[in-house]
């Protein structure tokens, strides 16, 4: 399997500029490109797939620059948003398409194998218009593999899937990495889904790479408030909010721990942990149960703080407007915009 490297890649599209982007796509790894709408995720994928010409940088497949190759010569399985299935071909016809293009051999054995592997055999003669979301995903993947790609590039794989189909897709993507040993690149705006499969991340915003690394480092030290919220921190405070606080209050205390861009705080638990700091009083604004326990939102020193009661939840829901006492472990507060001070432990 090929090792792909993206080296200082830049793309200009009308007035939008993407890059520079660096990626290392080793066989069997999954990389998630994260970002909100308009961040440049799809532009990056379309550049990789050969539909947009890079304005600078290189795309290397085992050291060979394929950045100027036409899409059909890149050996890259591109699954666009909406999957791009051929509506005028049956399931089997879709899967047969790349095989017919590549060889004069009888395509049927390979089609049968892929149909069986993705549990599509009973649907072989159906047209895409008559399939469910999960079935369509499997057809798209089977068709991409039929072309014997060296890299799978998938735009929004989880789009419009129900919970079960999402779970199933996660399994299939894992299988792709482990059995086919293919590098996989997925684009998504949902960090939770990305965390479920990816080894590394690129967070894009306005065409720029904001953050890049493995999930642990991304969670340990998000670079700014946007990234922190994006990767799932509930309590993110920008410096401007904190400087307004009076001495002795929560805001002033957080300011002492914050970086230049502010601070991100993982949900403090209720009742407070032993390592938690002095103890703050918050007025309950909402409380709702969920699979991860109870989420309680309180207002303290004009900051909205989300707290968590881990399961099993034995205490009753706190009443709205009542006061609860919570603590924040100073070591858990992530300064934003600072160099990653905790990474080396120095």
């Amino acid at each position, binding site marked *: 399997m090929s090792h792909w490297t993206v080296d200082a890649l830049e793309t200009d599209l009308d007035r939008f500029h993407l890059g520079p982007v660096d990626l290392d796509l080793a066989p069997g790894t999954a990389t998630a490109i994260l970002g909100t709408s308009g961040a440049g995720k799809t532009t990056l994928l379309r550049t990789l797939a*050969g539909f947009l010409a890079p304005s600078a940088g290189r795309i290397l497949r085992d050291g060979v620059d394929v950045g100027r190759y036409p899409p059909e010569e890149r050996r890259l399985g*591109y699954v*666009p948003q909406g999957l*791009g299935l051929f509506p*005028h071909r049956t399931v089997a016809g879709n899967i047969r*398409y790349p095989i017919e293009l590549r060889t004069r051999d009888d395509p049927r054995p390979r089609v049968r194998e892929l149909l069986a592997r993705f549990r599509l055999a009973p649907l072989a003669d159906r047209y895409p218009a008559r399939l469910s979301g999960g079935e369509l995903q499997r057809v798209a993947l089977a068709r991409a593999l039929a072309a014997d790609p060296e890299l799978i590039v998938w735009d929004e794989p989880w789009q419009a899937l129900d919970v079960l189909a999402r779970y199933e897709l996660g399994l299939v993507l894992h299988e792709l990495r482990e059995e086919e040993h293919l590098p996989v690149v997925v684009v998504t705006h949902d960090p939770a889904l990305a965390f479920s499969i990816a080894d590394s991340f690129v967070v894009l915003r306005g065409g720029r790479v904001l953050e890049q690394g493995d999930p642990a480092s991304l969670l340990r030290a998000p670079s700014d408030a946007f990234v922190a919220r994006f990767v799932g921190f509930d309590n993110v405070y920008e410096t401007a909010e904190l400087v307004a606080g009076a001495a002795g209050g929560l805001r002033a205390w957080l300011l002492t721990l914050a970086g230049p861009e502010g601070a991100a705080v993982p949900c403090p638990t209720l009742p407070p942990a032993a390592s938690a700091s002095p103890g703050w009083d918050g007025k309950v604004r909402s409380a709702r149960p969920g699979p991860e326990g109870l989420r309680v939102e309180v207002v303290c020193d004009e900051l909205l703080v989300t707290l968590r009661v881990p399961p099993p939840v034995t205490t009753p829901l706190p009443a709205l407007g009542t006061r609860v006492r919570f603590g924040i472990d100073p070591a858990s507060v992530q300064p934003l915009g600072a160099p990653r001070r905790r990474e080396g432990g120095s």
Partner: protein
Amino acid sequence: MSADGGRAPPPSPRRRWPTGSLWLALQLVLAGSLVLLFLVPIVALFTYAPLSGIYYAADNAAVRAAIWLTLFASGISVLAAVVFGIPLGYLLARRAFRGRAVVESFVALPVVVPHLLVGLGLFLVLAIPGTLPYRFIQAIGFPVYDTIWGVVLVMVFVSAPYTVLASELSFQAVDARVVEAARSLGAGGATAFLTVTLPLALRGIVAGLLLSWARAVSEIGGLLILAYAVYPGGPYNGPVTSTVSVYIYNLFQNGDLADAASVSSLFLLIAFVLFLAVRLGERTGWLPWRRGELAP
């Protein structure tokens, strides 16, 4: 008085639009009126022309020559629309270039210009001996004045825009991501066009071709000037004749109302059968371009 103690009725909505059966009736009346209007001349023709008249028209050599010429020339003009019109529609749909709006206006022009003007314009350029374009088309063997080439030229001019516009819309409607997926799976540009883009756009294109054909066979204005009579020459080697439209016009001018109605009815039948065949072919999936919409 009432059991609920004279409570006021619920306030009625400010506006009441027709609902249910009233709404359906309104639609039926409006749509039905138009269909009725379409039917009037057709019914009139068939009532005026007895079946025997239609039969005799079909048996008449002169009528058959006119019908043959019309079908032949319109066939060539549809072929020209395929060869030149579909690529133009594709270009307009998929490529951004300077002056595209101007090209699009020119494409729509033949639809809005009175067709006598088209005939006159073509006559002035191509049918007056001595001019450079006249000498050129004579030299390459495509004389247009009173020849089948003249008929084809006028027909292409007035009918090809329907194919261009229909192809443009159909190509625009093809999801570009589906085509990109094909490219990524190993199809070159031309292969992706032939295996994905064209099949997906085909239904709309065929509708445009049918319109083009209908427009071509019904043309008369331009033909009255450029090819009123058609002499044998080029691919046509039958007797001297004219297109069906001109032929019927002549019968009418001579006061042969019954004959005019008979020939009209006969031609109407032929056109109807052709249209019906295409529609049935689509429905049954025998013609390929609706597969995936109808099938399992």
